[in-house]
């Protein structure tokens, strides 16, 4: 604001010499005053708890520190609770004291933050205000700042990826320090139990077993069932929509199929668990088959419905991308539509179709809610679709939902599972893109 006024004043003084438009001066002042202040503010808010935690150590009596079951995190939590007014029972006097002191620190630090922020805002504002004169190129300065902001925000995507990889790989390494990776990858029994950080020597060796083969098998089984549903339906729909349907039919049915992809997975899960599974169970018992109430079949069928649009939409696009000249050539030789589609168009579109199927599989592998709600949690190593199986994603959810200690092998195993999941899905994606890229040029 001040900058704007000053610039206006300058305009009034010597109108023609100002380099940039007046409001750029204002924005420049605003930005250069606000950005450092925000930085300072964040540093203060993040740091004060850490600083307090260090400072509060002085107020913990020596006998507490020296006692056997001293754990700083617990003590800190005690003090924090007391600060927030949550008191369970009667805490020791020193906790209340420390909490009182903590409270006074909070007030002090708030005041301090405010003062420092005010100083920063004033000094940087003043400095930028000083800079304003008729030769100063404020537009360029503003643009530089904005460009930097834009550039920084694009780095967030990288940061997220790093965060994902960091969090998963780091914890997985800790898991593999407890459980050898060959046991994880090739073991056939999955039976995680909480047993503290130390697996060896706790007298419970062998109780927990982390063989992930049953989970992979379950994932595989459900994905196969899903593919058996979605590939024929999706592919035939794509062929029909792109080759036979009138443009009106196409405009109606294509979005309708895509609605299937927009339904939240939890709704599919509910549908699978409460409609499809009981239906399968009752019809199975009519045929003399014993179908578990949570079966791979129910989850797979519903998942198949879910991924129909992934296959149909993508394949439809790919089939449409096959040049018309190829079809015309086929008709020119006297072939019927069927022959043109089956012998010319589909082979031409095959890489894209394969890619769409791979993408659908990777979607099925990563799908969580349907399997959590409908496929069960029993880690069976079975190829029988009528039994309950469990998948990688549903195990991750079961392990990590609720409170958990971060040190136990059970919790860490979820991270190892997530790592394999990421590797599998990303691998499939890369392969699909590779297939598309490799064969695309042929017809262009």
């Amino acid at each position, binding site marked *: 604001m001040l900058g704007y006024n000053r610039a206006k004043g300058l305009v009034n003084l010597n109108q023609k010499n100002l380099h940039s438009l007046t409001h750029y001066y204002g924005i420049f002042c605003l930005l250069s005053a606000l950005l450092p202040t925000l930085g300072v503010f964040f540093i203060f808010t993040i740091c004060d708890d850490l600083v307090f935690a260090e400072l509060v150590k002085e107020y913990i009596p020596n006998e507490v520190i020296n006692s056997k079951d001293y754990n700083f995190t617990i003590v800190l939590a005690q003090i924090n609770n007391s600060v927030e007014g949550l008191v369970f029972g009667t805490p020791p006097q020193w906790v209340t004291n420390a909490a009182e002191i903590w409270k006074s620190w909070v007030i002090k630090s708030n005041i301090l933050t405010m003062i420092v922020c005010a100083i920063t805002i004033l000094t940087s504002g003043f400095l930028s205000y000083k800079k304003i004169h008729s030769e100063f190129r404020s537009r360029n300065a503003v643009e530089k700042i904005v460009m930097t902001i834009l550039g920084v925000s694009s780095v967030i995507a990288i940061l997220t990826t790093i965060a994902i990889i960091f969090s998963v790989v780091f914890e997985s390494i800790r898991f593999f320090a407890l459980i050898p990776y060959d046991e994880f990858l090739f073991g056939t029994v999955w039976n995680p139990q909480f047993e503290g950080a130390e697996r060896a020597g706790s007298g419970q060796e062998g109780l927990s077993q982390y063989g992930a083969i049953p989970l992979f098998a379950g994932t595989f089984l459900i994905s196969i069932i899903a593919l058996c549903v979605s590939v024929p339906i999706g592919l035939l729909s794509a062929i029909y929509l792109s080759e036979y349907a009138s443009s009106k039919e196409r405009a109606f049915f294509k979005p309708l199929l895509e609605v299937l992809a927009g339904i939240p997975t939890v709704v599919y899960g509910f549908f699978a668990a409460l409609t499809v599974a009981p239906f399968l169970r009752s019809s199975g018992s009519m045929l003399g088959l014993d179908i578990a109430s949570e079966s791979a079949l129910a989850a797979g069928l519903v998942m198949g419905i879910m991924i129909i649009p992934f296959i149909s939409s993508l394949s439809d696009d790919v089939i449409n991308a096959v040049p018309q000249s190829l079809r015309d050539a086929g008709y020119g030789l006297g072939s*019927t539509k069927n022959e043109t*589609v089956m012998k010319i168009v589909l082979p031409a579109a095959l890489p894209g179709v394969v890619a769409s199927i791979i993408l659908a599989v990777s979607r099925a592998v990563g799908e969580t809610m349907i399997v959590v709600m409908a496929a069960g949690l029993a880690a069976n190593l079975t190829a029988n679709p009528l039994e309950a199986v469990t998948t990688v994603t549903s195990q991750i959810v079961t392990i990590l939902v609720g409170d958990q200690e971060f040190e136990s092998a059970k919790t860490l195993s979820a991270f190892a599972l997530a790592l394999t999941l990421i590797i599998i899905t990303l691998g499939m994606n890369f392969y699909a893109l590779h297939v598309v890229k490799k064969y695309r040029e042929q017809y262009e």
Partner: protein
Amino acid sequence: MNKKIINPEDATNIVKNSILKRRSKDSRLKLFGRVAIGLAVCFLLFLFYSIFTKGYPGFFQYYVTLDINFDRERIDPKGDLSDNSLFDGDASTIVNESLFSVVEPKGRKEKKLAKKIVSSGKDVRIAKMVKDDPSLFGTVTQVKFALDDDIDSFLRGYIKRETPESERRINDKVIGFIDKLNEEGRISYEFSDYILSGSASGNPEMAGIKGAFIGSILTLSVCLLIAFPLGVATAVYLEEIAKKNRITEIIEVNINNLAAVPSVVFGIMGLAIFISIFGMPRSIPLVGGMVLALMTLPTIIISSRAAIRAVPPSVRDAAYGIGASKLQVIFHHVIPLAMPGMLTGTIIGMAQALGETAPLLMIGMVAFIVDIPNSVLDPGTVLPVQIFMWADFAERMFIQKTSAAIIVLLGFLISMNALAVYLRKKLERRW
């Protein structure tokens, strides 16, 4: 090998004979295509049908009308209408007395059974009524109370009268009470006021989606506030400013990878980074919104980039031509023109985020929270997670309430997507 020479007439015959077969093959493929689409659409319709038929009754429930004597002394002993005073009052006894005067139970045991007919939220209801309207004190007013979920199931016909008493969840005496209430016309089937204004509850007759709904709104606002500016800024940077070099290439590959990462992994990242390292509390909409923002970011970036790319270069050249700087071109011309496309992508991304469950399970938004969250820092839950939790409960009435919640969720999703389609149609410009 001797070459077979077919004479033209035979050849014509062969072709003529085969043509029927080929045509029928053709129509068979067409038929298969139709059947496939028909199947897919049938699945869709069946899904909607099964959820709507289950969910529609979930919006309604049975109420019993009782004459309540609003005795100030007993409801509000301190006379100041404070929560404490209302809590000390024995509103539920008044309700029970009124109920007893109708059904006339004999002995302690029958009284105990009769008490259970009316949902346990009765005192809360009376407290709320007198708070809203203190003039009720001293009057005798007819008040509607929700019935217990077992009674509700009985009235809906899920619990059959013919079932032997020992296998029924309610016994013959209670059925007698209900018949009595029914004869007096005190039982009514009405639009449930709990489903939309209630919060999570262990009692299905009192459970509602308001808490989850507010939680969803808070989470989505956080998500939108983070994802939209970041997504647009990234798209602008990548399309308009950045030179094509290794770094931008890495960014692009990263964005595509992020779009392919299963959603549950984002939840794991939120758990490991936001909660474990930064020490943020569990189950708050702020963390949920941040995780969902990272998840929807690729969708927004990709669609925003497409929208920016669709702005013809002539617009930029014209702006440069009259002396605009690069940023002026971007902010005054390119972004306004690309806005509809960006908004469409954002709405679709938000719709995804609204329906997402798995990552929020990871960061603890499954906790049983009765209070309705007031800010992004209060623990809360969201609609899909509420659906997931309710789907696990055994009571029959929860199935209906779950389906009702699904209807609300689907309603929002459909309207968001319709808005996106509308925006695209309305604001789309052909160059």
